[in-house]
Every structure is written in structure tokens, then in C-alpha cells.
């Protein structure tokens, strides 16, 4: 494990998490959420949890984001917080 | 065949659920019979399993043939067996009783509805028999996910109530998972018996008691224990009547069972009472739960909503009883799981029948109901007497055990709360009875109109209701047998002293 890489990903994970819950547009939120999932998946791949990382990449970053966008498409992008 | 009962218990409703779901797209008419078969088989196998347990003692079943800490094992003793029978039999009765309501409410999605119904039973039954901490989480999610979807089928505010339940339920599930994670990191095992044997060496570790707190909070959210109950009234009020009479009696009681199981079999009594010293705060919290549940029930104008708050105060009875820390209290709590499940299903089935006829459950709409639906109201009164705790009905006996336990433990606040809630229940039920018995008469006199015709609920809805309300009295009469054969064997020796 390369600790610099690890640290960079850890920081980014926290940043995307905070960004995802504080951005004022749900579509951006969906994309940030996808990015968060993907970073998480990288983190798990680093920790040698390949199966979990694979699942998260296909589910969290892939299908979940699509569902999210689909739901936003049928509701609204607007959010006050 | 005998040895496979624990597995068949799960497989039969599970396979039937998938069949129902497939058949919904091929032949719709066959869905309901298949669901009845699945649920009926589940009830039959659980009764047989209980008989087996009573004859031969604890039953173990290793799934996949792997021995315990590596594979997943079932562990069925008489406590599981009793809860199992309650869950599967009541679910079956409810399935029969609510047939008409379902057919009228969701004609096109009957298949999907019964699929979720069966999967909900699978989730609850699995939670009761499993001996693995993580398996319990997965089954908890099966039961929760199905209940979110079923509750959201109701009218008006149901989707919002269901989404709130989903948020709270997920927090509860995640807290439980966190607790299991903390146990896993400290012991390296997920099997309940194995964890229990590893824990005594590390009782002093802060991680273990944090694990316990998190499991307790998680389970507490799911069973709507007082400060965490906010999701329950809305969810159960707005759910369709077929669903609320399924979920309200079973879900919360199974969660109480899970709490007792965690207290007895995972963290032993030594830990829960001697090391943690949580008993006093928990009993006080449940005292608060009982008082608040009862007082909030007084403020309700909707029959179903009133029942929801009664459920919340009954949860307080069971949690408080379990935490009293003596044999009588624990016996009362376990007995009350059985009794409360029966009382709640009777109340909600009666409410379902009333709703089927008069299409509303606001208290002022109930006028003259005794003349229109005498049998339904008779069952309602029986259930009410049992909730109040009048002797021949079963509610009296569990309350008796609880009060005895509380007196032995010196928890006079809890005794006072029990008496207070009984008093409030008297007011609640007599108010309903007054409205529905006398309300109509005055109305009829005032206008000189002829009395309304008798519109009793159809026989398929009425018979199950009559069966459960007869059950209320029968269980009450056989309380002694139930306590000595089913409950006494599971009370730990440390409590009997």
C-alpha cells in the first residue's frame, strides 16, 4: 500500500461526501455521489477487498447513479439545502 | 423429515413467494391459493417444530452442513418455538381474514402483494429461528424492506409515513450492524453461541458495551421503543388494513424477542445486569414509554391511531419486564409477547372489518356500530378487556407477572405506570364502546328514523376474528401450562435463585 495515495483518496472521500450533502442541486448531488462511491471503491481495492470493490463499482457508482438520475428526472432538481 | 423442519419452515413460504410472483404473470387466480399454501405450510411446520422441541429439547440445524462458527446454524428452543408459532399462525389467520380487502384494494397487483406478504413472513420467521448475528441482520432487512413497500400501498399520507419509517428503520438496521461489527472485531465470530462463549474474557472492554448499546438502540428503533417510536403511529395508521393487521402485531413483538435473545444468549445476564448496570435506566425509560404511550392514546381521534399508541405503551411493558432482572419479570415479558400479539391482531382485524363496512375509523363515525356489527364489536370488547387486563382474558396474567416482578425488584414507578396505563385503557375502550353503543341510539331517537340495518362483516373476515378472540380467553385459561412448559425452561438459572 502506498500511503500517499491512500491519504489522497481518504481526503477526497471526505470532501466528496461533504460536497454531496451540501450542494444545492440534486443532479450535481447525483454525480458527486457517484464520484464518492467510486472513490470508496478505490479505497476498498487498496485494502485488497476486490470483490467488494467490484460490487461497489458496478452498483454504487454505476446502477445507483442511474437510478438516482432517473428519480431526479421524475421529481425535481431543486433543493433548499 | 423430522430433522428438516427448521429448514422447511423457511423454504416453503420462500419457494411459494417466488411461485406466486411468477404465476402473477401467467395465471392470476392461482396466486392467492399458493400464498395460503405457503403460509399454511409455514404454520404447520412451526407447530410441528415446537412439538419436537418440547419432546426432544433444543433443536440445532446446520445450514449447508457446516458446523456452527463457520456456517450458519439454527438454534430453536422453546422460546423461539413459541414466538415462531405465534408469528406463523397469526400471519396465516390474517392472510385468510384479509382476502376480501386485498382483492378490493389492489386488484391488479395481487400477485406482487402476496409475494411481499410471504417474504415478510419469511423474514420474521427467519429472524426468530436463526442463531447467527449477521443472518439476523439480513432477515431483518428482508422483513423491513417488505414492510416499507406494503405500508406505502395505503392511501393519503402512506408513502410519506413509509419513507420516514424507511429512514428510521435503516438507521436502526445500521446501528445493529455496527454493534455486530464491534462484536466481530473483538471476538472474531458471528455465531451467537460462539460469541457468548468468547465474551466473558473481555467484559470490561469498552468496545463490548458500546456494541451492546448499539445493538440495543438498533433493535429499539425497529420495535418503536419510546423515544424512538416516532415512525410507528403514522406508518401503521396509514397502511392498508390488511397490512397493518399483519405488521403491527408481529414486527414489534419479534423485535422484542430479538432483544431478549440478545440479552440472554449473546450477552449473558451477568453482563447485562452486573457489568452494565443499565437495568434501572431501562426500566425508567419503559415506565416513561408506558405513561407517554397511554396519554398520547387518549388524545387520538382515529381508532387505528389510538391502537398504535397502545402498541407503543405495550412495548414499554415488555421491555420493562425484561429489564426488571428477575424471573417473574422476564416470564411476564415473554408471556406478553404472545398475549400482546394476539390482542393487537384482534384489535386491528376488528378495525379492518369496521373499515371494510363504514370506510372510516374516526371515532365519531363509529356511532351505532353495536347494532350494525354486533359480533365484530363483541370481539373488539374482548380484546379491549384483555388490553385492560380483566381476569379471564390473557392480558391479566402477563400483567400479573409483570407487577409481581416489579414489586420483587422494588420498581414501584413501573408498578404505578402499569396501573396508570390500565386505567387509561379503561377510559379509552369505554369511550369507544360508549360511542358505538349509545351514540347510534340517541341519533336514531332524535330523528325518529328506523335503526340501521345489520351489516355484519362477511363470514370470511368474521370467522378468523372470532377465532383470535376465542384464543384470547383460551390462552388466558391455559396460562399456567404455557408458563411451565414453554417459558420456565428458558429462564436462566441465575434469575431463579
Amino acid at each position, binding site marked *: 500500500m502506498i500511503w500517499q495515495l491512500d491519504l489522497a483518496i481518504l481526503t477526497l472521500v*471526505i470532501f466528496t461526501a461533504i460536497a454531496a450533502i451540501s450542494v444545492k442541486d440534486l443532479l450535481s448531488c447525483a454525480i458527486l455521489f457517484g464520484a464518492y462511491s467510486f472513490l470508496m471503491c478505490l479505497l476498498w481495492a487498496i485494502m485488497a477487498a*476486490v470483490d467488494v470493490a467490484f460490487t461497489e463499482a458496478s452498483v454504487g457508482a454505476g446502477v445507483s447513479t442511474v437510478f438516482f438520475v432517473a428519480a431526479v428526472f421524475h421529481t425535481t432538481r431543486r433543493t433548499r439545502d | 423429515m423430522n430433522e428438516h423442519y427448521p429448514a422447511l419452515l423457511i423454504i416453503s413460504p420462500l419457494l411459494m413467494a417466488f411461485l406466486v410472483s411468477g404465476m402473477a404473470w401467467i395465471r392470476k387466480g392461482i396466486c392467492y391459493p399458493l400464498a395460503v399454501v405457503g403460509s399454511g405450510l409455514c404454520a404447520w411446520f412451526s407447530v410441528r417444530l415446537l412439538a419436537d422441541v418440547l419432546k426432544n429439547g433444543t433443536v440445532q440445524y446446520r445450514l449447508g452442513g457446516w458446523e456452527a462458527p463457520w456456517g450458519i446454524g439454527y438454534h430453536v428452543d422453546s422460546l423461539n418455538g413459541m414466538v415462531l408459532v405465534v408469528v406463523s399462525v397469526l400471519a396465516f389467520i390474517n392472510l385468510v381474514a384479509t382476502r376480501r380487502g386485498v382483492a378490493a384494494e389492489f386488484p391488479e397487483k395481487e400477485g406482487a402483494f402476496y409475494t411481499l406478504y410471504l417474504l415478510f413472513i419469511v423474514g420474521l420467521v427467519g429472524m426468530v429461528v436463526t442463531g447467527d448475528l449477521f443472518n439476523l441482520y439480513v432477515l431483518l432487512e428482508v422483513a423491513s424492506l417488505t414492510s416499507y413497500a406494503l405500508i406505502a400501498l395505503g392511501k393519503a399520507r402512506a408513502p410519506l409515513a413509509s419513507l420516514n419509517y424507511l*429512514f428510521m428503520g435503516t438507521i436502526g438496521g445500521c446501528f445493529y450492524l455496527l454493534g455486530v461489527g464491534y462484536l466481530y472485531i473483538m471476538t472474531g465470530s458471528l455465531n451467537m453461541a460462539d460469541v457468548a462463549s468468547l465474551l466473558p474474557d473481555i467484559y470490561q472492554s469498552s468496545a463490548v458495551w458500546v456494541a451492546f448499546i448499539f445493538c440495543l438502540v438498533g433493535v429499539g428503533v425497529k420495535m418503536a421503543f419510546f423515544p424512538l417510536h416516532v415512525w410507528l403511529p403514522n406508518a401503521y395508521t396509514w397502511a392498508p388494513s390488511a397490512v397493518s393487521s399483519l405488521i403491527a402485531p408481529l414486527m414489534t413483538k419479534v423485535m422484542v424477542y430479538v432483544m431478549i435473545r440478545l440479552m440472554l444468549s449473546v450477552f449473558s445476564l451477568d453482563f447485562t445486569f452486573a457489568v452494565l448496570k443499565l437495568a434501572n435506566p431501562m426500566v425508567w425509560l419503559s415506565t416513561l414509554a408506558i405513561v407517554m404511550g397511554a396519554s398520547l392514546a387518549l388524545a387520538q381521534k382515529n381508532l387505528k391511531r389510538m391502537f398504535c399508541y397502545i402498541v407503543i405503551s405495550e412495548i414499554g411493558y415488555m421491555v420493562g419486564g425484561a429489564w426488571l432482572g428477575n424471573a417473574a419479570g422476564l416470564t411476564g415479558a415473554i408471556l406478553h409477547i404472545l398475549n400482546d400479539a394476539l390482542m393487537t391482531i384482534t384489535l386491528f382485524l376488528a378495525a379492518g372489518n369496521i373499515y371494510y363496512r363504514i370506510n372510516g375509523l374516526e371515532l365519531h363515525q363509529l356511532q351505532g356500530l353495536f347494532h350494525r356489527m354486533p359480533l365484530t364489536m363483541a370481539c373488539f370488547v374482548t380484546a379491549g378487556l384483555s388490553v385492560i387486563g380483566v381476569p379471564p382474558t390473557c392480558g391479566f396474567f402477563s400483567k400479573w407477572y409483570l407487577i409481581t416482578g416489579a414489586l420483587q425488584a422494588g420498581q414501584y414507578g413501573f408498578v404505578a405506570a402499569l396501573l396508570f396505563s390500565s386505567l387509561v385503557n379503561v377510559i379509552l375502550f369505554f369511550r369507544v364502546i360508549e360511542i358505538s353503543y349509545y351514540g347510534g341510539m340517541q341519533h336514531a331517537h332524535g330523528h325518529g328514523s328506523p335503526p340501521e340495518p345489520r351489516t355484519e362483516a362477511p363470514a370470511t373476515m368474521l370467522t378468523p376474528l372470532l377465532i383470535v378472540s376465542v384464543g384470547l380467553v383460551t390462552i388466558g385459561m391455559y396460562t399456567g401450562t404455557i408458563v411451565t412448559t414453554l417459558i420456565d425452561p428458558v429462564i436462566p438459572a441465575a434469575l431463579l435463585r
Partner: protein
Amino acid sequence: MSDLIPMLVAKYNYWLYIVLMMIGLYAMIAKNNLIKKLVGMNIFQTSIILFYVSIGCKKGAGIPIIQHGLNTGHHAVDLSQYVNPLPHVLMLTAIVVSVSTFGVALALAIKIYQKYKTLEEDEILARLRPR
């Protein structure tokens, strides 16, 4: 203080998961928008998955796929070479549970929006009050 820093370094994964969990839980409780709450819920769940995966970690160990081949044959497995696979299995299940919950919750959100034309909790409650 001197023993705090080694402790921080030795367990930073656990600390990080707690921070993420707090972010998620805060969003679930304090946010007003239903979809935002859902995102918080997902962050909460992934943080727990991170915790479990961290439990399974061993320093210097590789992925839990046993090296095998024609000429290696069956020999004793060197445990320090492979990470603990059990948490991975548990977390596969947890991921599936989280995506299922997410799907159902989005379906509920669409239903709520169809009814109230908004996803803000306070606006929905304000709409319900007059009745």
C-alpha cells in the same frame, strides 16, 4: 499526547469511518430535502462497509484468492498472505441491502413528489397541516 499520535496513525481507518458516519447521520437527521436524506443514508451505509472492510485488513496481505496451479499442488496456505475474507462476504450482502433500500426509497420519493409536488419535508408538512 505522545501516545495519542501513534494511536491515531495505527487506527486512522476507524477514525475516518466514524467521520463519514457522522456526516451521513447528520445529513439524515438535519437535512430537509428527502433525496438529500437518502444520500446521507447511503453515506452512512458505505461508512459501515468501510469499517467492516477495515476489520478484515492485514498489513502486507494480498487479495483472498488462493494461488494455485498445476505445479503448486495442495500445500498449507500461508495465512499472512491473504486478507480476512469473511468481512468481504458480509459487506457484499450489505451493499446489496443498501442498493435495494435506495431503489425502494427512490420509488417512494417519486410517489411523494407526484402527490405533493415538492421534496422538501417542511413544505410537505405545511401542505398537510390545514386539513
